[in-house]
């Protein structure tokens, strides 16, 4: 509220300051006033109403003549015939003002002479108004003033009975230069909200993106046109007619192979960190140049207006045919041959880059000029002499840097007018030839999926909970790039936990509530699924304990690209916004060595902190261990008892100097665990993303991790879920379940393979486990083969030679399916607390199960498919999608709809 009150105070101050300014027609208005007053003083009263009316008519005609003489002789008829907007609202009618109604006669006389003058004033007035309303003082040229004045001439100035002025052409004058807030919602043909759609005002090139719900807000003027673009969909244009909210439906774009001409492309630039590239791939990896008929119609007489790039001066850009730029490309990028379909001069050529990445079939690549995205039409406006160099990116590298917009490749142009910063950014962009990112460069912990096991042999199943969701964002990245998802990147528990479910909050002394649901498994006939969920409690912001945060930021050279350090800065800013006075923040960087960039500073000094963040620059190697030492030391020195002490690491995982073996870095962090300082790992960028290191570090260090691939994700993790991400309500949370063999033939835990614990570890408080943050949810799924069901995964009864298999007798808890036990520690204690829950052997059919259950099951199913699970028999994608769609009810942020889209996209 404080900030809002400050805003209102600022508004009030601004208004008061404005009031101190003078205004143009001060003297003229005075004359008006004085006339009224004088007249009142000296003239007697008449039945003015009637005379007034007559006077008005007379004045109108007279004024018409006057104006005609001054401005336009042809306006005469117009004025007289025009209907007079002479309604009560415009004229003062209340009792206190009755006096004003007197005395228009002599006003009239007096005004005869002055009417003419007034029309001049009026013209000036409008010109001034035009000047005033362009408050930003951009381009209030003389021409436009005169233009306004001329427009004025076509409107009639009519004096009413009070000798006041009424214009008939209101619309023309008053609606000038009024930017409005235009809002709307964008969906696809299925009705799903589309986040990330580019919404651009064509006339100003200002743009926004739609949010999670497909909603957008943008300022534009009535009469301007909005353009909606999104990879895989046809561009939509919409002319703004009013301020009504818009509903835009985007159609998917289909490939038209007939149009394309195909050339080979071989970019010789190499990425030093990757192994040598294989020989150029066949025709699938190409640049094509086609003539797109649509584009030809649209363009041409566009002025050389190139408002996107502040550096390139308008005068410098000549309207040159695109062919020249193509030639430039040809000259500067080895191996590119460019031709065009049509010989017509001035015809627009469109470059098509097709590679593995174009899943959608939309053709248009993204053009970046000196760091600013632009559309193909603008390209032709660039003088090829001004081009310094061009880089072409495809596939994963493109999408990593530019998101889904880059799905069809990116052409990055550096002009000679670029400044050093832009040049640096340009130089840092590395293009990888002819291949997608090799998963080998990203490390994933390998694991085998949990097998089915019988309660008779393995009575207890024990695991540590996990609230991380990095795997899902990672998988999303692969699918969006059109790449195959590495099996080991698929952690089903993290996919499940990415989504928000509707669990009731806890109301007991325990920090979380337990929910269970038992229904059918869709991927194996006769099998069932037991869903166990934990819902963490909520703590209001004010009651959250004070934080002692140390940001440990990787500023090595590899962090330089757009999706790394700049995104880190933005993400940290989001965090800083939420800090309160009692919170402390410090910044430590590590590159070749480590440095304390900002000593612990109160959360109220946001500007100071933000400045420190802003000034971070990258370069050098990555000496992580020293950074870790320094960060923890700083955290320890400023430890807040019963507070939230945490180190937040922001990196691309590239620890390549000093301690790099996983174990030793982990040992370091594991030791620090005892100091009760938590650890959050934020992974940025791709290619060098060392997932396994992130995971193991945050696991060892009592904490969580997240993969931030976009500003949206940063907002989700660090803003919307801020409380959960940074405040633990319980640590070392373990789950142990015992299935009743009377009802359960065999079972298996889906996911959590890297979190499995030994049965005896459950009661062992020295054994580490996961933590739960404020509001966090944890979902786990057990697949169960009920007794009596004939299944290939059921109990295996071998014919043993040396043992007699006795028929086991089952306990009398005949109607219990299982008993679940939970252990957790309060954040600042080292002694665990136990909870227990009995689950009855009652199941519902899948149709009758909750919408959340259906959706979670669909997510797990997808994960199992991605992992190529050997333990599922039904794998039809359509069934999966059908099930997922039944769970779309609770889709607050549109992530579930996005999931359905991902499934459709995947192989």
């Amino acid at each position: 509220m404080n900030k809002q009150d400050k805003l209102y105070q600022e508004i009030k101050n601004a208004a008061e300051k404005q009031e101190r300014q003078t205004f143009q027609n001060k003297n003229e208005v005075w004359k008006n006033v004085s006339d009224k007053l004088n007249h009142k003083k000296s003239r007697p009263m008449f039945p003015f109403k009637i005379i007034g009316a007559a006077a008005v008519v007379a004045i109108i005609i007279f004024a018409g003549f006057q104006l005609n003489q001054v401005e336009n002789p042809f306006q005469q008829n117009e004025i007289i015939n025009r209907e007079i907007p002479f309604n009560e609202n415009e004229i003062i009618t209340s009792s206190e003002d009755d006096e004003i109604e007197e005395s228009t006669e002599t006003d009239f006389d007096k005004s005869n002479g002055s009417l003419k003058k007034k029309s001049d004033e009026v013209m000036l007035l409008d010109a001034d108004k035009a000047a005033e309303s362009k408050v930003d003082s951009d381009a209030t040229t003389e021409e436009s003033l005169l233009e306004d004045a001329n427009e004025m001439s076509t409107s009639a100035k009519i004096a009413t009975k009070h000798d006041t002025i009424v214009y008939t052409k209101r619309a023309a004058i008053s609606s000038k230069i009024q930017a409005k807030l235009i809002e709307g919602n964008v969906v696809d043909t299925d009705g799903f909200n589309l986040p990330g759609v580019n919404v651009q005002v064509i006339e100003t090139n200002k743009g926004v993106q739609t949010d999670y719900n497909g909603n957008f807000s943008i300022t534009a003027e009535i009469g301007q046109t909005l353009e909606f673009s999104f990879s895989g969909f046809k561009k939509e244009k919409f002319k703004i007619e009013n301020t009504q909210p818009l509903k835009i439906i985007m159609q998917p774009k289909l490939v038209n192979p007939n149009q394309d001409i195909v050339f080979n492309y071989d970019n010789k630039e190499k990425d030093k960190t990757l192994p040598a590239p294989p020989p150029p791939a066949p025709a699938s990896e190409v640049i094509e140049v086609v003539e797109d008929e649509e584009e030809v119609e649209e363009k041409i007489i566009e002025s050389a207006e190139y408002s996107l790039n502040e550096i390139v001066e308008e005068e410098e850009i000549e309207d040159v045919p695109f062919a020249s730029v193509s030639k430039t490309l040809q000259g500067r990028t080895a191996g590119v041959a460019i031709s065009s379909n049509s010989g017509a001069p001035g015809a627009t050529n469109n470059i098509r880059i097709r590679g593995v990445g174009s899943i959608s079939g939309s053709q248009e690549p993204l053009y970046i000029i000196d760091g600013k995205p632009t559309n193909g039409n603008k390209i032709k406006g660039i003088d090829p002499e001004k081009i310094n160099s061009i880089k072409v990116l495809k596939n994963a590298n493109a999408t990593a840097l530019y998101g889904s917009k880059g799905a069809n490749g990116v052409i990055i142009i550096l002009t000679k007018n670029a400044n050093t910063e832009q040049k640096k950014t340009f130089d840092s962009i590395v293009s990888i030839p002819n291949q997608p990112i090799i998963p080998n460069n990203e490390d994933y912990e390998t694991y085998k999926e949990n097998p089915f096991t019988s309660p008779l042999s393995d009575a207890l199943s024990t695991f540590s909970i996990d609230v991380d969701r990095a795997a899902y964002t990672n998988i999303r990245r692969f699918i969006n790039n059109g790449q195959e998802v590495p099996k080991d990147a698929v952690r089903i528990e993290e996919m499940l936990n990415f989504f928000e479910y509707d669990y009731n909050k806890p109301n007991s002394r325990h920090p979380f509530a337990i929910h269970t649901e038992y229904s059918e498994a869709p991927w194996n006939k006769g099998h069932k699924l037991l869903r166990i969920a934990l819902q963490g409690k909520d703590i209001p912001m004010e009651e959250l304990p004070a934080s002692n945060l140390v940001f440990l930021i990787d500023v090595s050279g590899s962090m330089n690209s757009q999706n790394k350090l700049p995104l880190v800065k933005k993400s940290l800013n989001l965090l800083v916004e939420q800090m309160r006075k009692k919170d402390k923040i410090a910044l430590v960087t590590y590159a070749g060595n480590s440095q304390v960039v900002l000593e612990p500073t109160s959360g109220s000094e946001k500007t100071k902190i933000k400045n420190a963040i802003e000034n971070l620059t990258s370069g050098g190697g990555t000496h992580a261990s020293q950074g870790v030492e320094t960060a923890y030391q700083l955290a320890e020195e400023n430890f807040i008892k019963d507070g939230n002490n945490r180190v937040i690491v922001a990196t691309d995982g590239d620890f390549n100097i000093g301690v790099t073996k996983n174990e030793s870095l982990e040992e370091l962090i594991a030791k620090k665990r005892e100091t009760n300082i938590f650890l959050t790992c934020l992974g940025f960028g791709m290619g060098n993303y060392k997932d396994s290191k992130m995971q193991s570090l945050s696991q060892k260090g009592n904490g969580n991790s997240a993969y931030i691939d976009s500003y949206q994700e940063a907002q989700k993790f660090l803003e919307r879920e801020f409380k959960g991400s940074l405040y633990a309500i319980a640590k070392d949370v373990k789950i142990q379940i015992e299935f009743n063999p009377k009802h359960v033939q065999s079972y298996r835990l889906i996911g959590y393979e890297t979190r499995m614990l030994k049965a005896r570890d459950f009661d062992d408080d020295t054994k580490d486990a996961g933590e739960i943050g404020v509001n966090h949810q944890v979902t786990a799924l057990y697949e169960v083969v009920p007794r009596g069901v004939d299944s290939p995964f059921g109990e295996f009864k071998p014919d043993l030679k040396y043992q007699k298999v006795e028929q086991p007798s089952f306990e009398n808890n005949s109607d219990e399916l299982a008993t679940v036990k939970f252990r957790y520690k309060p954040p600042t204690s080292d002694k665990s607390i136990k909870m227990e829950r009995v689950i009855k052997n009652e199941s519902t059919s899948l149709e009758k199960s909750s919408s959340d259950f259906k959706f979670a099951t669909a997510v797990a199913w997808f994960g199992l498919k991605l992992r190529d699970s050997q333990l599922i028999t039904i794998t039809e994608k359509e069934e999966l999608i059908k099930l997922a769609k039944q769970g779309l009810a609770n889709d607050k942020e549109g992530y579930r709809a996005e999931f359905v889209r991902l499934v459709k996209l995947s192989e």
Partner: protein
Amino acid sequence: MAELNNLIAACKKNKPSAQKSLYNQLADQLYWTCKRYLKHEEDVEEALADSFYIIFTKIKQLKNPEAIYTWSKRITINHCLKRIKKEFTHLYIEDMKTHPATDEVAEAKLGELQLLELVDQLPEGCQTIFKLFVIEGYTHKDIAQLLEISAGTSKSQLNVAKTKLKTLVNLYYYQNEKENEQAG
């Protein structure tokens, strides 16, 4: 100030030179006040002149000369609102969908004029109420009386305006940030 008191006393006696003098003192402030509430420029000067007429004819009723500023402002606002009263029969109700912007208003590096511009982008009706409440400091009761609406409507319209303004500020903040960022 004694000077002001004398001036007003003279105005009460309809002395033209005093009137002119007082006019020059007040006109700027009252001009911008009219402009705040009246959309159409042509109305502004008209309303301003009329307001002054009322002020000078009613100045005899002013008991406390020091209150001349607030008193004259009040008259002006009353007058302006009468003209736009018909706006308030149909007030903008926003369907409160969640916005991606945070609940906190971004630390907007907005200039004063930009701020006022943003306020001007609020939907009509709630914009007026917002200005009356925040800039002029009227109570909901005052506003209700002036516009012939209920105090409850005034409150809810104020909230509509505040929410919308939040969006606008965040929008400009984010767009500014984006532009600054892209500028390298």
